[in-house]
């Protein structure tokens, strides 16, 4: 835990073999590449995950600040639309809720009640996708073209978190 203290977690969510469902991984990987050599590089850990709920909360233990990169299905925006908001403004992103255990909000509450060190600053950067039901390792063009913009937003957010003043 101590080794993570002070660091920022960027976590890409989704299923990497389910087409656009896995765009969170692409965003996180692009952000990691973009951050190589930058001033924040040493203060960030990048991870990829297919977990939600309790499993996702468990991956966040030890971090006080985290950014989730994920897909989202709202049907209120065009495919490829990028959003950057505090996680608290979402009911959930695409994968933060696991319907097999708990929502991330519930999981975080459980973790905090247990005294675990968990992010107090949690941000979500999402790309709108259509529901994805066909296995594929490639993204649709509209979603793929949004990845660099979402990765830039992560880099911007990392700079803000690293220099809060």
């Amino acid at each position: 835990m101590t080794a993570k203290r002070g660091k920022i977690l960027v976590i890409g969510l989704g299923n990497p073999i389910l087409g656009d469902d896995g765009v969170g991984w692409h965003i996180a990987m692009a952000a990691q590449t973009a951050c190589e050599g930058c001033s924040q590089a040493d203060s960030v850990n990048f991870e990829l995950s297919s977990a939600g709920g309790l499993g996702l909360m468990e991956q966040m233990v030890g971090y006080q600040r985290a950014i989730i990169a994920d897909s989202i299905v709202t049907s209120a925006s065009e495919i490829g639309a990028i959003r950057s908001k505090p996680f608290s403004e979402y009911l959930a992103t695409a994968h933060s809720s696991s319907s097999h255990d708990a929502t991330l909000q519930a999981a975080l509450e459980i973790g905090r009640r247990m005294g675990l060190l968990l992010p107090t600053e949690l941000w979500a950067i999402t790309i709108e996708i259509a529901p994805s039901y066909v296995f594929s390792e490639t993204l649709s063009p509209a979603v793929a073209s949004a990845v660099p913009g979402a990765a830039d937003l992560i880099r911007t957010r990392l700079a803000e978190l690293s220099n809060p003043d």
Partner: protein
Amino acid sequence: MERITIDPITRLEGHGKIEIFLDPEGNVANTYFQIPELRGFEQFCVGRRVEDMPILTNRICGVCPEAHHMASAKAADAVYRVDPPRTAKLLRELLYSAFYVTDHTTHFYALGGPDFVMGPDAPVAERNILGVIHKVGLEIAGKVLQARKNGHAVIEMIGGRKVHPCTSIPGGQTKGITEEQRKEIEEMGRWAIEFAQFSLKLFTDIVLGNKHYVDLILGDSYYIPMHYIGTVDENNKVNFYDGKISVVNPDGERLGTYEPKDYGDWIAEHVEPWTYLKFPYLKKIGWKGFEGGKDSGVYSATPLSRLNVADGLATPRAQEEYEKFYATLGGKPVHHQLATHWARLIELLYAAERWVELATDPEVTSDKFRTQVTEKPTEGVGCVEAPRGTLIHHYWTDEKGILTKVNLIVGTTNNYAPISMSIKKAAQSFIKQGTVVTEGLLNRVEMAFRSYDPCFGCATHSLVGQMPLEVKISDAQGKTVKILRQYC
């Protein structure tokens, strides 16, 4: 005809929809349980190397990647006709036992348990894991998180990663464990036994100690006699990792025991026009519709099924609980499908005891954890008991080990017909002429499938917000007369 829609179902991996059609008198005429099946996985695999499958297939599912990893590794063993050394089998089953403890724990405390601990009529905002913690105490949260943490630690030590293991390959494992790791694993296993016993005590106190719940379990609403299948060892005891598949009829008579590679002789699949998913059934009896009983080929593969097909459990404490289970419920087989929750906790105890047995085997730390592959690849079947049903992986390759065909029967798919029948039975029991459809009442319908611990997704899914439950009631002309929504 009125129509009630539950879409999507709460607390179900993947998202599904229940449609309930009422007749003019307001009784349930029929129900349909539909899920959006993920498509194309078998085709996605064709052209890939068979040795890559244990890594690839554990990405199918966000819930039970360990089950796919194991079934896939065993199928790859069979493709190369290689028998892994005993140490590799010990390590695989040890990892798998730890996974079972983690998975069954999560189901009871986060999914199935809240219906009983909080009550089926509790407000949905309270009928969840947070409600359980509030009612039972914060200590329970610590135990649940510790059980998951320990399970993931074992999976990482043996499988290389916490969630998606990567060390099972054709012929065995890529690495073994040290004596230091073994001791740590043993210690965590002993803790898991205590935790499983605590969970069974909790079930006894809260569920079996409540006449209302006992009546619900033993009542007619969730009672469906059917056939059962499950994996057993050479002594006809339950085994999650390896063995033959036992089949019993609704009277408890064993119809046969078959090698997993012969699944095609026993299992066939029925197609309905209203769903993409197929309905497996016993081939020798045949598909007779959504009917229970001896003359219908409908079967289930669940924790309850596994207890029903076996002669017992191979560990002492779990065997005691097994005997208590059947003594309490009136003997074998048990057809009260809600009793599956109890059966699952008995399996939790078995998995914990097996964990310690395997961790204390003198050969588990041996460095002989892989048999070299020498044969040309051809075709092979791998099978394990996933927590939610018998899981089959069947691969065909060319002589270079490139996949030419893949067939999977995933755990929950076995139970598609029983789940559909259970939903209809519960809906017919609770929704009758003049019934005011409440959230609590619909939750009782949901409880019918939740006991199966279904996981139709076999993937993580894109969902917006928390899982919504929408109940839409329409009149015979299709006009919406009432909508209920809830979030959990």
